[in-house]
């Protein structure tokens, strides 16, 4: 479903200021899927930061996904494919107000990112630590 700026405004009112007003389901769906993508992004980036020993390691979404998609580890390439897909949905959530994705697409994407990245943070960390392809230098 498409969404409007007024609906975004109402969402912020409810979430930040405790205003009691109805928010449309579309807002919850979009915000949920977009935030889950971010959780997945930070899960991978934390593992990369640990590998290079730089807690402040910075990397753009493009570079992170590109590194995953070209990794020698098959598991990391699978992760790259999922992150590429998740980022695409997240872009629609945040930048395309007219996008008309069915509600269950947001749920499926969020569930995939949660099941295969966020909830597997320890495993993802092991994959990243064991990867032989060098990490990109810190920087956006």
């Amino acid at each position, binding site marked *: 479903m498409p969404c409007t700026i007024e609906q975004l405004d109402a969402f912020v009112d409810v979430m930040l200021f405790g205003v009691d007003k109805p928010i449309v389901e579309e807002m919850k769906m979009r915000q949920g899927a977009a935030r889950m993508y971010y959780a997945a992004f930070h899960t991978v980036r934390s593992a990369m930061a640990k590998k290079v020993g730089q807690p402040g390691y910075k990397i753009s979404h493009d570079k992170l996904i590109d590194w995953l998609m070209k990794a020698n580890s098959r598991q990391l390439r699978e992760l790259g494919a999922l992150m*590429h897909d998740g980022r695409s949905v997240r872009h629609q959530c945040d930048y395309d107000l007219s996008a008309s994705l069915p509600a*269950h697409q947001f749920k499926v994407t969020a569930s995939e990112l949660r099941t295969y990245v966020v909830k597997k943070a320890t495993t993802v960390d092991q994959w990243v630590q064991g990867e032989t392809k060098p990490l990109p230098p810190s920087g956006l």
Partner: protein
Amino acid sequence: MPKDSVVEMQFFTSEWSVPTSEVLPVVFTDGEIDRLVGERERPITLGNLQLELSALAMARRWSEMFTPRSVAAVSAPVDTVPSDVVCQLESEVKKLAAQHLGTSAAVANSLEDGVVVFSVEYDAPEPFTDALLESLASIRAAFVTSIPEAHWGKFALHTRAR
């Protein structure tokens, strides 16, 4: 396809500090179409023809706008994805989609930032089940495995519920 086919293409150039987004008519000559459609063992699909025409048009447009060094950098991802690899992978994705998501699943391809994206549209149960997540994971795993090493990073898979 008629000779000297005209295809309208939109070029987004903001990433290259050229503040324009424009729709341009691009003329493909008889020889160019023949070269794309002919000289191949298997018939070209419409999707792949569009992909190759896009690559050709972009390379031509870029060559007018940027220095040779920029053009080389930009067109490299497109030029290094041979159409037979695209066909092979698309065929694999179709097979996997039918196997795991049913025969109503449809596959299309597009070129996004130098990456060939296969989009799989399928009928999802509502509410969806863990089995669906497992199916999507299986498709992704098989897809990644089928990409030749020389083309890692150049193919992506998006799955979209109808």
